[in-house]
């Protein structure tokens, strides 16, 4: 990294204790211990993305193969398909409730231990792929934002095309303690990420690709740089750049990226595409895109960090739908039922009360297992640490107090609605006050804007046509022709 390079950052946020950030200290990463998990069964919820539930396309008793579609969007809904990551028999289809409160049908599949792939899963031989083919593949592969937002990637590409964005941003800013699945992905498969970025950029009609990464992620920067050099020589039409960030949590959130990179405050109702002419994709999502394009492999597995305070940590590749209990069994030493099992990461995750029936979904980047322990609480000492930590520049201590007293309007005036539930304030509070719970629940309850609005989901639903298709229709009459001219020279996963 040239020392003159500007380091981007937003205000506040937290740099967690070094002791917690095992990913910087442990040697396993260098050894690339990316263990593959072969679960005995999977539970595939029909709603793992932002949008509408999909409909199971299999029935109980049916034999399914790896890569086979088991859930399809109903016509006119905002959804992407769900595929199986194991081969085996469908044992049940019933309603489940995920820790985030989503209640939907789920397909239960028992593994046949054979790992048989669906015939469609084979390296692609097409010489040229048009932008619209790339979009079709990404949609059919069921790819969604894997950093946690879960928005169908195809919808984001369409939005980028609609606003004629100028930059594609690759989000390599994972910053939550314990989590380093994205970094393992980068170290293992930087080429796939760079190629995925090129493919998606081509589909979105963008030629400038910026990789956003913390300045201290030296290994990952080198891996990406090498991959870019290998790729850039063959694609004169695309420019690759790094944008270095200061390492702090929660740096990867799109509104904070806008603040750090463009100095722009995006309101709750604005989008990065519209305001900054940029579109942001998580690096693991781009990996999945390239895997779908080159290997014709839908999104059926992902890397996630399984970790906790008991010293056993690992990054694994697990089929989507793997029950958390099977992950705990696989990573030796994490079966203690006294522990708290967290679906997600330790600052923003949710407690999984029934690890046996809680699956890894497309957006699960980590499972955290921590000893159950109570945090002693004290009255606020007005230290201001929560305000210093809050990335949204609000005063969590004061807002918490106002909400507890029922002064909702005043709390609102103080910006309570801006809370993004990052957990930084509760983490940092020396008095152990759970500020996040109070403020985030309030913010969630008053949020009238939603991603649905950004994507006009409801409007599209009324029209009985899939949002994804609708965007494509729009494209065809507008910029699609132009974009279709972009021919991506991919062949069988290799650069032509």
């Amino acid at each position, binding site marked *: 990294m040239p020392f003159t390079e500007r380091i981007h950052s937003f205000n506040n946020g937290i740099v967690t204790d070094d002791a917690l950030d095992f990913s910087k200290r442990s040697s396993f990463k260098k050894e690339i211990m990316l263990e593959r998990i072969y679960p005995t069964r999977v539970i595939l919820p029909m709603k793992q993305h932002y949008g509408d539930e999909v409909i199971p396309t299999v029935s109980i008793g049916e034999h399914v193969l790896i890569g086979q579609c088991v859930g399809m969007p109903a016509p006119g809904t905002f959804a992407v398909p769900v595929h199986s990551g194991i081969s085996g028999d469908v044992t049940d289809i019933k309603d489940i409730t995920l820790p985030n409160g989503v209640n939907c049908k789920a397909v239960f599949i028992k593994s046949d231990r054979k790992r048989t792939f669906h015939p469609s899963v084979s390296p692609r031989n097409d010489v040229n792929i048009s932008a619209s083919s790339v979009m079709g593949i990404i949609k059919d592969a069921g790819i969604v934002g894997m950093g946690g937002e879960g928005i169908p990637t195809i919808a984001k590409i369409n939005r980028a095309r609609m606003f004629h964005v100028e930059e594609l941003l690759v989000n390599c800013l994972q910053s939550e303690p314990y989590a380093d699945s994205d970094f393992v992905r980068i170290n293992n498969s930087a080429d796939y990420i760079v190629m995925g970025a090129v493919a998606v950029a081509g589909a979105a009609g963008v030629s400038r690709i910026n990789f956003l990464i913390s300045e201290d992620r030296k290994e990952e920067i080198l891996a990406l740089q090498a991959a870019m050099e290998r790729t850039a020589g063959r694609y004169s039409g695309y420019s690759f750049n790094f944008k270095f960030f200061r390492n702090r949590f929660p740096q990867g959130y799109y509104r904070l990226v806008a603040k750090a990179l463009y100095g722009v405050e995006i309101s709750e109702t604005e989008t990065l595409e519209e305001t900054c002419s940029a579109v942001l994709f998580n690096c693991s999502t781009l990996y999945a895109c390239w895997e779908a394009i080159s290997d014709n492999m839908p999104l059926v597995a992902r890397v996630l960090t399984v970790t906790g305070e008991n010293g056993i940590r690992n990054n694994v590749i697990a089929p989507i739908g793997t029950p958390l209990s099977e992950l705990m069994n696989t990573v030796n030493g994490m079966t203690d039922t006294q522990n708290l099992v967290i679906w997600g990461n330790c600052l923003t995750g949710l407690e999984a009360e029934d690890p046996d029936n809680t699956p890894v979904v497309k957006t699960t980047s980590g499972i955290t297992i921590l000893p159950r322990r109570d945090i002693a609480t*004290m009255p606020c000492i007005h230290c201001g640490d929560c305000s210093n930590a809050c990335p949204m520049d609000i005063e969590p201590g*004061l807002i918490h107090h106002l909400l507890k*007293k029922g002064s909702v309007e005043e709390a609102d005036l103080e910006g309570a609605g801006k809370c993004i539930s990052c957990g930084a304030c509760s983490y940092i509070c020396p008095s152990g006050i759970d500020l996040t719970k109070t403020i985030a629940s309030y913010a969630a309850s008053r949020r009238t804007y939603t991603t649905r609005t950004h994507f006009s989901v409801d409007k599209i639903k009324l029209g009985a046509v899939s949002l994804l298709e609708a965007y494509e229709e729009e494209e065809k009459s507008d910029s699609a022709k132009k974009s279709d001219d972009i021919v991506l020279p991919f062949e069988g996963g290799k650069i032509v």
Partner: protein
Amino acid sequence: MRTAPFIHIDNNIAVMDLKTIAALLPCVVYAVFSYGLRALVLTVFTAALWILTETAMKKVTGRGSLRDLSPAVNGIVLAMLLPPGTSLYMAALAVLFGSIVVKGLFGGEGAGFVNPAAAGRLFVEVCFPERMSGFYSVGVKMLAYKSLFDTKVPEETAVAEYSDFRPVELIAGHYPAFIGTGCLIMVITGLVYLIIKRSIRLETPVAFIAIIIIGRLIVDVRTDVYNTFVFIMTSGVVFAAVFIMSDITTTSRRGLNGVLMGMIGGLIAVALSLRGNPAVTLCVPPLAVGLISGFMDFTDSAGRKMRQKGGQADA
């Protein structure tokens, strides 16, 4: 069901207090080294009495039990600010004023306006100035425990002009001073520890000291700038900066606010230093800054709402 976040910073209030106590230990060691076991007795006494008083107050007011170590911190800081010849009676009075009147009546844990140790020390200085003058020459070991219970006014020992001491003696604390503030090396050792442990914010202390140096240089330039050095070394302002001005509960320590508070404290200290009472110079600036912080909070619309509605974020 538990909700996120599931981890918490190690630095809770009790741990922060523990770190402050650890940072104060070098000063306690200096106190014992310079003024004998009498200084240790005084320190243990003030800390223990402060803990007892707060525990009793909590019992009486039905606020549960002690949940932090701030009474011990207050007690030790107070002891460090006492002249070595202070009797236990005076120390007890300072503790009772600091713990009951200042800390107790203004809301207890986390809700005080001013630093209770500085307030307690100032209280006895103002009410019993003649009893707070027990300075002794360094090296006189105070093994005469009887004097701890003296009701007599302590005799002043003739002390040489500070400017007669060599710089190395001043830096090492080899001159008569309050029992724990005299040795810059020990205070800096504590400061370094707090910085390493990320348990101090430097805005206020640095601004405080910077303004004092500038202010004193302006005053002393007409006579002898060496006096500025002597003042910084002997007045205990570095101790006050590290252990009182940085008090998170009573001093606004966020960014520019923290700098501003430090600057105001520094200006007050410079003004008071011209009048010569070391205890007043040391204790009034943090108290004034605490009051100003509280006043600013009160006039600030958000802060006002908070105070009116009960004073503190509920745990």
